[in-house]
């Protein structure tokens, strides 16, 4: 299928359109909110919350017998919130480290959730319940009302971010300081945590408990690589998240039997990988290149300064010297010499080298500069 045909299909096919829109909006919301989790170094938070939501889903089904995804989501929301705020309680009241508290809640709730699921599985109505879709996610079950709900939450989230932007920023950067200015940091913190829980719960049906945290972290981690501004980071994370949704859906729709959630997560991970390697300021590739370039420059400068030392003792600066003497100098290499020739700093005839006028000038500049620094 060509790209044009696929785009046409998205517009004409109800299911495909619903899934594409749903995953795009979901990706945008989790991307935005994920920025906050990433900057607070709470990378486990998403995992803990999504796992904590599982028993809520199971309990909601047991109590109401409902298959309606909204009822189950409310269950998920409640137990996700309990989990999230329990974690906060543990870290402030006791002196357990945050990751310990996260790990504790994660395994406690998830264990309980799995227990309930196996219990449900033994019941006669187990097959219709379809609760396992919350484990691995099943984007195909998205309906239009789900997308509306996601869009509503996305809109609300943008509004809250715009409203409390400066409060969020100062909380993230310097919580203690924010408190001395009179801000209720507990409230801001609770607000952002609640939204993270909400976004995660909304994504469970599509991506599932297990992979949901990647949706929170990956777009934000990728976005961080490209910018040094919080606003741009949040925006980019939303764009990356939405793109992961759209591309992931496209790939899984055109390749038979690939489930959507994991593909979306894979696409998001590719963004992360790409960003970590290719970002101009923070990427590994350019860091490496800069390092090599700096090192080469330094070697050349050192060689040139060394030559200047030798030449200094002669009246005639262009007096030729044997290349052999350069071997005494550790930074010297044939390649370096060639570069100096290319730059027209040095002339070589046979086995003899000499500094050019230009090279002498450059070297004396370098030399004097070094003297000053010492």
């Amino acid at each position, binding site marked *: 299928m060509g790209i044009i045909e696929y785009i046409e299909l998205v517009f004409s096919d109800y299911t495909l359109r619903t899934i594409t829109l749903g995953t795009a909006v979901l990706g945008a919301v989790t991307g935005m909110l994920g920025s906050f989790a990433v*900057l607070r*170094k709470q990378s486990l938070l998403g995992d803990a919350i999504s796992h904590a939501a599982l028993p809520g889903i199971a309990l909601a089904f047991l109590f109401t017998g409902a298959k309606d995804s909204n009822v189950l989501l409310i269950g998920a929301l409640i137990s996700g919130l309990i989990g999230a705020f329990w974690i906060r309680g543990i870290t402030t009241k006791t*002196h357990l480290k945050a990751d310990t508290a996260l790990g504790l809640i994660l395994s406690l709730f998830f264990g309980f959730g799995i227990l309930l699921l196996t219990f449900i599985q033994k019941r006669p109505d187990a097959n219709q319940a379809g609760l396992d879709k919350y484990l691995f996610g099943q984007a195909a079950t998205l309906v239009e009302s789900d997308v509306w709900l996601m869009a509503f939450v996305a809109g609300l989230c943008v509004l809250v971010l715009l*409203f*409390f*932007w*400066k*409060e969020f*920023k*100062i909380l*993230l*950067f*310097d919580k*203690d*300081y*924010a*408190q*001395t*200015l*009179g*801000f209720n940091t507990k409230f801001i913190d609770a607000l952002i945590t609640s939204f993270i829980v909400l976004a995660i719960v909304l994504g469970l049906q599509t991506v599932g408990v297990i992979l949901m945290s990647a949706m929170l972290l990956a777009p934000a981690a990728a976005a*961080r690589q490209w*910018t*040094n*501004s*919080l606003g*741009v*980071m949040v925006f980019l994370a939303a764009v990356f998240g939405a793109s992961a949704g759209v591309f992931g859906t496209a790939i899984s729709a055109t390749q038979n039997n690939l489930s959507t959630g994991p593909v979306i997560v894979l696409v998001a991970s590719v963004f992360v990988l790409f960003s970590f390697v290719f970002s101009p300021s923070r990427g590994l590739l350019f860091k490496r290149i800069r390092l090599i370039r700096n090192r080469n420059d330094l070697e050349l400068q050192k060689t040139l300064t060394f030559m200047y030392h030798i030449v200094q003792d002669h009246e005639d600066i262009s007096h030729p010297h044997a290349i052999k003497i350069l071997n005494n100098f550790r930074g010297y290499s044939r390649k370096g010499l060639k570069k100096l020739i290319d730059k027209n700093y040095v002339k070589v005839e046979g086995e003899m080298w000499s500094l050019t006028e230009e090279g002498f000038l450059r070297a004396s500049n370098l030399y004097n500069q070094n003297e000053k620094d010492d």
Partner: protein
Amino acid sequence: MGRIAVKVDDLTVAYNYKPVIWDIDLQIPEGVLMAVVGPNGAGKSTLIKAILGILKPIAGSVTIFGKPYKSQRKHVAYVPQKGSVDWDFPTTAFDVVLMGTYGDLGWIKRPGLKEKKRALEALEKVGMLSFKDRQISQLSGGQQQRVFLARALVQNASIYFMDEPFQGVDATTEVTIINILKELRKAGKTVIVVHHDLQTVPEYFDWVTFLNVKKIATGPVKDIFNDDNLTKTYGINYKVSVQK
């Protein structure tokens, strides 16, 4: 010297069970430039955080100009220890200094032209104006320290609490900072500074508090900054011999 700027009564703070500061009584007169000295782990940061309400004490009370801290927030500015924040945070020096205006703005309102102008002035004062658009991770330690100082200056408070503002700064920056602190004192402000370099205490400060879990002594530098108190605080025989 008239009013008492900060009054601390029986303040005790514990993170776990063991109190890290014990029964602290302090009266800081308005208009002094005071050093808080004590070994690592003595509870200096803890004391400041408890005064500022960041930590909840298990006992004791704090008043600022005779009233509880909560109602006096606008009079107090804080420079945290530099290592307490993540300097890789995606923001610029200017933006950090602008945070100093957030308290006056209150909830939701965004900083406008007036606030931005104040932030620029503060950056200029600490000699960091040309770095205003720098990402904060690309500042040196001393520059980061000056950004923090500028952020507190923006608050235009009456009392300044500074946790090791001289940490990791070179001689030039140290002079810049101390001149600003002396200027604040001249303007009648009260400045409380956690300080590690005992040699410079007599030169920089006029008031000093010795702290090591308990308060050892507090008062004018010329009266109490002596080998006896230093030995009591640091536990080893100290010979700083105050330079007169």
